[in-house]
């Protein structure tokens, strides 16, 4: 394969992986604080429609990106009120959020159907971007791609090296002990949930502003569920989330590529590749039981109330 083709393929893999990565990172932070928000798909859709709509109306992609993050946060806020303040069951609430997100995004998005927009502008550094293979890959991406990588590093640093991150992890591990020490458990969980919502919104916006700059009902098409699975796959570690998103995105794109080459394996089996690969890799890395148990936030999904 020529260097151009290799470069093009890698760019496509980045496009496939980035929405997954953004959403998964957000959900990772949320879950690290002990909150299980299954509404990722709904938040991504709201982010996609809000981001597109705002960009369309304002003419500025920056406005679109900000709107997407805020919209995702708004949805997460609804979840937070129900699950953290009113102590509703987190699993059911998250699923209800997804149902709401699908319907609401379709409703809001009606006026945006059939409208094309220019995609998010990509970086151009004279000299660097023109390098073969790695030029566009490293120096020719758009803002959200760079943000996703920055988030990997930033969240890693936050969780592992900062005091605030330690507090968040404590809240996720044992909310009663955290409360006893004096940390505001509910407030921290709210912040983590809102952050997760913002990231999911951005993940959705990446689809509607960069990958396919348009709005189409249900365009997230199940990527939210993949993102959820990736958090588990990554054992709640940001660097592994990066690996998982690119593994999955790469295979999802790769199987389409293989089809084009004329592989005589039925397309449905090729399509199974990313899912099966994820299971296999997870099984391999989970064999060390102690490592897994140390990573799952112990209070994940459990409602917290000071009287208990």
């Amino acid at each position, binding site marked *: 394969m020529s260097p151009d*083709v290799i470069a*093009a*393929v890698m760019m*496509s893999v980045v*496009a*496939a992986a980035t*929405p997954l990565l953004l959403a998964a990172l957000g959900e990772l932070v949320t879950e690290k604080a002990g909150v299980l928000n299954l509404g990722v798909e709904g938040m991504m859709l709201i982010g996609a429609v809000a981001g597109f*709509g*705002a960009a369309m*109306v304002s003419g500025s992609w920056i406005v679109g990106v900000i709107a997407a993050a805020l919209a995702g946060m708004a949805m997460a806020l609804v979840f937070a009120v129900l699950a953290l303040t009113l102590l509703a069951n987190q699993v059911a609430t998250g699923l209800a959020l997804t149902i709401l997100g699908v319907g609401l995004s*379709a409703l*809001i*998005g*009606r*006026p945006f*159907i*059939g409208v*094309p927009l220019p*995609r998010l502008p990509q970086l151009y550094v004279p000299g660097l971007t023109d390098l073969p293979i790695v030029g566009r890959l490293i120096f020719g991406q758009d803002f959200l791609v760079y943000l996703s990588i920055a988030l990997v590093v930033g969240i890693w640093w936050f969780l592992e090296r900062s005091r605030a991150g330690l507090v968040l992890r404590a809240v996720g591990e044992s909310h009663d002990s955290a409360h006893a020490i004096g940390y505001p458990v509910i407030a921290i969980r709210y912040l983590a949930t809102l952050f997760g919502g913002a990231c999911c919104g951005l993940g959705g916006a990446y*689809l509607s502003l960069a*990958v*396919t*700059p*348009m709005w*189409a*009902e*249900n*365009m997230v*098409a199940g*990527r939210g569920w993949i993102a959820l699975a990736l958090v588990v796959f990554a054992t709640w570690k940001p660097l592994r989330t990066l690996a998982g998103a690119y593994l999955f995105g790469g295979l*999802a*794109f790769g199987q*389409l*590529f293989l*089809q*084009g*080459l*004329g*592989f*005589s394996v*039925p*397309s*449905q089996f090729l*399509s199974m590749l990313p899912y099966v690969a994820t299971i296999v890799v997870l099984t391999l890395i989970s064999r060390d039981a102690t490592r897994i148990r140390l990573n799952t936030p112990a209070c994940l999904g459990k409602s917290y109330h000071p009287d208990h």
Partner: protein
Amino acid sequence: MFKSTIKAAAVAVAAAMIAAAAPASAADKLKVGFVYVGPIGDLGYSYQHDVGRLALQKALSDKVETTYVENVPEGADAERVIAQLAQSGHGLIFTTSFGFMNPTLKVAQRFPKVKFEHATGYKRANNVATYSARFHEGRTVIGAIAGKMTKSGKIGYIASFPIPEVVSGINAFTLALKKVRPDAEVRVVWVNSWYDPGKEAAAAKALIDQGADVLSQHTDSPAPIQAAEERGIYAFGQSSDMSKFGPKAHLTSIVDIWDGYYINRAQAVLDGKWKSEDTWGGLDSGMVVLSPYNPGMPKDVAAMADQIKNDLIAHKITSFDGPFNDRSGKQVIPAGQHLSDEKILTMNYFVEGVVGDLPK
């Protein structure tokens, strides 16, 4: 922004409600129901059916009242929706996806007085007619255009599911392509969905990465057109005119026009002349048309395309004139003959020039 959208929607809906409750007594008007498998916002297949519905509404507004249900899954729910339409006084019901076939027939048995029309199906009854368009004729025209516009000789085809309509489309396209450019090949990628912009775009990019410089699609979103525009190649749209998603890339689209058919059939019910039959309209019927060519298309290519189109309309040629072989080299039909409708409907092979096999 949200508020004004809601307000606008409210006004529109209120107006529609008032219009629907219009003077002529409900008993006089024929109620026509439409069942869509996807959202009308797909700007593709279901959208075009709805355009047809609106045309019917407009043309016969004093005699006809239409209802539609969208996003109806093709499983057990479909029968209930169709039955509810029949029960609530609809005299003519269009079920617009092949997966509605058995549900339509089951309901038709229970409601012998209601007329049903099933799109892209093959089972009929006294009160069930079938209709479809010869989309493959459109594919013949664009296949020829592709042959002229490709430099690399590699055409990328983004396909949904290996159902007969898609397969015959690919074959018609390839046959026409190779008449113009004998060494060309068609690479097919199956996205296993009718409508998934992200996946369609990825499939398009994969094909472009492999050297395709013209794309054709049998999926419903404009994503492949966008991908083509971004990479500076050409593409053909599907179901509706997708040119605004790729002003330079979009050569033409195969557009489904159901307006005339819907008006005719409703009128037939009103006149008491409706009977069950099978309609398979080609370019000659106006049920399938090609959207205006890209102004950048070379004049001789446009002229060739129009010639082919006219020949098809006049039945001088068909999409499947012999001789041609399937991928294994076996001759499908000899020179001087062409495939019968039945053979086209049951096509389960690829012709020479297509890379890759059909799942068996």
